[in-house]
């Protein structure tokens, strides 16, 4: 099976996982959900690292990669921290 087809298998199955996991999320946490998925989509940082870290990299590609790493890092750090800040506020009565 060609690599692209394997990737498609992974993608479709992951969609099903996403479908079932997300329906379980309580509506009161929808804002933290958006913030958390935002942080998680910072996973493009992996792509950015691969572009930036290549040894034979040309200067323009390296700048491109650097910008991508920076942007994705804002997402990762900002996203997880702000989610944590929000979730810390959700308390039950008489904590």
């Amino acid at each position, binding site marked *: 099976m060609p690599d692209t087809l394997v990737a498609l298998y992974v993608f479709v199955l992951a969609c099903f996982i996403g479908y079932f996991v997300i329906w379980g999320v309580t509506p009161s946490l929808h804002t933290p959900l958006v913030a958390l998925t935002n942080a998680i989509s910072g996973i493009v*940082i992996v792509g950015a690292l691969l572009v930036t870290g290549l040894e034979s990299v040309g200067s323009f590609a390296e700048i491109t990669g650097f910008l991508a790493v920076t942007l994705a890092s804002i997402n990762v750090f900002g996203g997880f921290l702000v989610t944590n800040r929000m979730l810390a506020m959700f308390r039950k009565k008489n904590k």
Partner: protein
Amino acid sequence: MQISSNAQALAYLVSAVLFIFSLKGLTHPATARRGNFLGMIGMAVAVVATLLGSEVQSYGFIIAGVLVGGLIGVVLAMRIQMTAMPQLVAALHSFVGLAAVLVAVGTFLNKMDAGQLNAVLMGELSAGAIIGAITFTGSVIAFGKLQGLISGKPVKFAMQHQLNAAIALLTIALGVHFAMSGSMLSLILMILLAMVLGVTLIIPIGGADMPVIISMLNSYSGWAAAATGFTLQNNLLIIVGALVGFSGAILSYIMCKAMNRSIINVVFGGFGSESSGAPSAGAAAMEKGIRSASVEDAVYWMEDANRVIVVPGYGMAVAQAQHSLKEMMELLEGRGVEVRFGVHPVAGRMPGHMNVLLAEADIPYDHVLEMDEINPEFASTDVTLVVGANDVVNPAAKDDASSPIYGMPILEAGRSKQVYFLKRSMNPGYSGVDNLLFYKDNTSLIFGDAKETIEGMVSALKGAGH
């Protein structure tokens, strides 16, 4: 230290599983923080595994990027006001979009140097770049609307849909040409056109539809990550992209359903652009006029109530009234009054916006109920206080088949014995529809800033009695 590609793949699998558990944690507020923590670990595992792989050779720019980006992220996350959360999320979405575009361009340059370009790779690369570019500029426009930098009103002009379709077709054509020829000019033009498309797609959508737009752009940012995963043959990116993409898609669906509209209608419709001129079934009721009440009237009824329900809306966020509401809640509870909050799914500017603001004010989450939970309670409730909400309590959605919001599920505030409506002015809600609830016999309006009104109630409650 360096790890083999097999070890790296296994680490990515661990990371993917951690992300799934992370999202699963949000099923309940009690497990949510642990979920977020698992997400952080998942991300750390992914980043470390990537850095230790054989592909990453030089670290200078990486360290610089992580330091700069990390610092900006930390400062943003710590400083941001809870009311500005929709803007922050829109800004972060735009960063993911732009990062995906940059990764696509960088990958193209690297693969070109290495002589590894082929049509499939470039096709996948185009998809990632197009989705990323649309996410980028679309989110910038959403940010501008939320921040008030550009008008929140829908911007409409003739032939808009035809123009969008033309741009979309041209973008795809350039993508195909790029995949076939490897022309860098086509790649750049394609990205620029996709950026234009992001603007023209979001600009016609009004402020009240922001919860759907935020969810949609959330979804796009996921698909952009997934497409990047296809380009890089990286299963972790594909899995995570699919999870995020589906999360946003499901949220969009929930938001649309809560407005009884289809996603097509939201994306191409644009609410509140024209005034509804035709006389409706509600016209007769409106002639009866409205009653206004004082703060003291409302306090008089609330003090002796068994149950008070507060229905918050975007106006509460604007007035920052949540903290005063918490104080009012405590004073009422001190007198044995049960206070609950009823939240409509599309109240505010993003999914769950009200819940976060109420949580910020330290209102316990078990006092905050969803639409389906609270609706049966209204009939046995003495006083409902509507704070900055409008369309979501409009009975026209149930009773008036000619109303633009007909069919939208609402909070049935009108069924409680007394309704007090805190309002700044008589302006209609974002849908531009007049609210039939104003004219009901059991409704009174209290004019003024929501926060000042609630503060007035608080001091009246403190003064009275003891």
